[in-house]
């Protein structure tokens, strides 16, 4: 029986493996314009990195000239195209004995996100889990279905990047439909990762050209080397044991309690629902919210279960590296480093995780 079951499992496993095989093509930089035009002709909105004064923002582009590729990371994450910073979820009107409700339509627009980073793409399947959980979030799900992700592997990184410490890499394929890797100054190797990606590449005809030498080993793939900062396996066991520990307060005294870290994070997904209304009608609106605000957990009674910043900071770490792992079997962090880059007080999350991993090793030694 057991043998049969094992065989069955192996068979299934192979099915998963063979279900999709990667197609390799070449995308030349000079074809970027035809790519955007091709997408527009098919009714896609294209989002790509764009320069806006001191920022590099993922934003809608109309032509290839607007695309900016010489950067480590965009300032905004991919999340706002699926979970916008603010959105109306319904409108209502109250008349005599009646309440009428109008639900928004047309929010899921056919979109291609071009040139986002592998860490951003990897955040999407992680977030799919929570948005498909007990309450399925139609806004997230329909936008996900309407979108394709064409990622560009990182050819550079900075001190804040730590994807390799959370099980990813600068050329991870998780969450992407197509992965582009720079192979020369003006050429990218395009690897289709999903059927959706393959169809998209096919639909664009001659924009992508066949690879001369199939097999990526022979190509000069330009991928950044991201230093591994800590061992993720050591983080959760320590968190399991140390809800109360002096390190939380020591590390977070400098935290000013704003929401910059959570809002730039591609995996922080907390939101607040408010009614913006007059006496008889109104809009119900969903807004980003964050666990670092003291208002976040304030009860109507006036009691606040997380009354100090160290408790809020602990929550951020616990949610990402313990609670989410227990609930959804995924780490709620992709190592993009945005939170540390923008932190007004230079709170550095990978440094916190390094401390935790080291603490864990030391405790282990004692035992």
């Amino acid at each position, binding site marked *: 029986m057991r043998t049969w079951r094992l065989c069955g499992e192996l068979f299934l496993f192979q099915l998963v493996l063979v279900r999709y095989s990667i197609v390799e093509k070449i995308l030349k930089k000079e074809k970027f314009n035809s790519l955007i035009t091709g997408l527009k002709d098919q009714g896609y909105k294209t989002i790509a990195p764009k320069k806006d004064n001191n920022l590099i923002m993922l934003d809608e582009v109309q032509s290839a000239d607007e695309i900016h590729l010489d950067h480590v990371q965009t300032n905004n994450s991919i999340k706002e195209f699926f979970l916008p910073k603010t959105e109306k979820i319904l409108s209502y009107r109250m008349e005599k004995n009646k309440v009428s409700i109008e639900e928004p339509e047309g929010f899921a627009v056919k979109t291609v996100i071009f040139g986002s980073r592998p860490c951003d793409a990897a955040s999407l399947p992680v977030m799919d889990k929570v948005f498909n959980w007990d309450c399925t979030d139609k806004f997230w799900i329909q936008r996900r279905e309407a979108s394709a992700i064409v990622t560009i592997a990182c050819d550079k990184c900075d001190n804040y990047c730590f994807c390799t410490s959370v099980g990813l890499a600068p050329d991870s394929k998780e969450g992407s439909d197509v992965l582009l890797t720079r192979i020369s100054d003006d050429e990218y190797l395009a690897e289709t990762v999903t059927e959706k990606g393959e169809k998209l590449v096919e639909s664009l005809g001659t924009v992508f050209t066949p690879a001369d030498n199939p097999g990526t080993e022979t190509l000069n793939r330009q991928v950044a080397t991201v230093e591994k900062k800590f061992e993720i396996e050591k983080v959760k066991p320590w968190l399991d044991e140390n809800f109360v520990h002096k390190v939380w307060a020591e590390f977070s005294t400098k935290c*000013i309690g704003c929401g910059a870290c959570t809002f730039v994070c591609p995996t922080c997904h907390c939101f607040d629902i408010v009614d913006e209304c007059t006496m008889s009608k109104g809009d119900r609106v969903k807004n980003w919210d964050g666990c670092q605000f003291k208002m976040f957990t304030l009860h109507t009674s006036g009691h606040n279960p997380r009354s100090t*910043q160290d408790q809020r900071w602990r929550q951020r770490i616990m949610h990402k590296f313990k609670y989410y792992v227990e609930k959804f079997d995924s780490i709620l962090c992709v190592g993009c480093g945005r939170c540390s880059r923008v932190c007004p007080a230079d709170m550095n999350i990978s440094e916190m995780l390094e401390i935790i991993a080291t603490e864990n090793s030391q405790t282990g030694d004692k035992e």
Partner: protein
Amino acid sequence: MIEALRKKAEELLRSNTVNVIYGYGEGSTPERTRPVFITKPEDVSKLTWNKYCVYNLTTYLKRRESRKLGKPAIVVKGCDAKTIVVLIKESQIKREDVYILGVTCNGVGEPMATKCKACDVHTPRIYDELIGEKIENKEIPFEERYAELEQYEKLSEKEKWDFWQKQFAKCIKCYACSSICPLCFCDRCIVDKNQPQWIDPSAHPRGNLSWNVTRAYHLAGRCINCEECQRVCPADIPLNLLNKKLAKETEKNFKYRAGYNIDDELAMATYKEDDNQDFFK
């Protein structure tokens, strides 16, 4: 200078003059520093001083977590010291609640912060101990101090409106601007009050406009121009333009500069019969 700072900090902790030093320490990268809270004399070597010490550490006077550590000595630049004056005048702290470790400063940031370009407080105007060679504070003419407004003031009303619409559209409502501001000390901000809802919490055009304008107005005649709001804004909104414009109007109308002289009466909390009232129309 770093050695003198560490020595003084150690002395203050050993003598129990203060319980904690709010200072600058090494940051994530060489181009960055971070706030550090030193409570043990043996830890003073963590203190540093360099051109990347942009933060205004007086913001930690409003935070419960840092206040819990006891009486502080705060490392302040000339600009930051003005905050302490405003906090005293606004009855938030008493002079004896804080030991001021003034540092002389020739400008911070790389490239140098805008606030440093017309600085007339290289040496703090208030301190308990001064670290570093005294630098003469030269008087800087009014126009020069507000030079960064020149381009902005040339815009027409419509252009100004369009400019701010575009800027505020970027706001993500993270409230880093108010969280970092040492003078945004309300325990419950107006944006967090919802009965009635004065300001829409949503990051849509109406919510963003009302938030950003209200934040700036609450600082009229109070902002000391540390530029921290602008530095921390993840959306790169030039918030200091608003603050600076309001400071200019306050100075023009009431001859008042926030935090400059401890004996000056607060512009927004004092009524004088001869106040300029031309703006009532």
